[in-house]
């Protein structure tokens, strides 16, 4: 299990390769890379802020919960802070499990919680100035998928 909060640009492909090594019990690996969007020239830069010493343990606790809930063999989270340019990776999540469904759901669960619950603050800089971004209603809605009663598959 690995959680990293960093200012440096990272290569999501390299992160996935590193994660996939040494997981002989894994039947599947799933990854998600979130990329800063240009949004039709509206976004010139994103600025991400964390609370050092608070944000990392929060994500570690989330990963621990995901591991237990989805029976994950491994999980990795990388989250950028500081200035982020359009096209750069902002977040990376990878999960490994014995079977694909657990790996998919584990990654989905991690991303839904990182999006609207993790202690980060995001400012969008564009031609019209800067504004703080709050989660969309849809982001909060996504969270309820993990608390609502599970429907049979």
């Amino acid at each position, binding site marked *: 299990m690995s959680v990293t909060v960093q200012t440096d640009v990272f290569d999501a492909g390299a992160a996935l390769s590193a994660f996939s090594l040494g997981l002989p019990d894994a039947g599947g690996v799933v990854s998600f890379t979130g990329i800063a969007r240009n949004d039709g020239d509206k976004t010139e830069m994103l600025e991400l802020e964390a609370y050092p010493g608070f944000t990392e343990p929060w994500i570690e606790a989330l990963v621990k919960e995901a591991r237990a809930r989805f029976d994950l063999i491994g999980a990795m989270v990388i*989250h950028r802070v500081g200035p982020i340019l359009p096209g750069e990776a902002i977040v990376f999540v990878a999960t490994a499990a014995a079977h694909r469904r657990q790996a998919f759901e584990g990654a989905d669960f991690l991303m839904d919680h990182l999006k609207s619950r993790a202690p980060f603050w995001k400012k969008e800089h564009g031609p019209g100035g800067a504004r703080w971004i709050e989660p969309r209603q849809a982001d909060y809605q996504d969270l309820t998928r993990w608390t609502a009663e599970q429907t049979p598959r």
Partner: protein
Amino acid sequence: MACVLLFGALRDLAGWREQIFDGVSDLDHLHSDIARLYPDLAEAISGPGVQVAVNKALVRGNIILSAGAEVAFLPPMSGG
């Protein structure tokens, strides 16, 4: 004394990131000091979705502040 930390939009509103408040005994006391010095900030930190962490642990309601406590006001969060 308590060290107050502001994040996100709260920091821009107040115009500072970190400030020491002397002689505050608990969160209510801190809040009244903030209200006296920075009424706009006091209103914002009472708003919906603002969470409070004392010594990097989320808290609810009024709690006693030990000497040198770190009090962070956390507006609605948004990652990745």
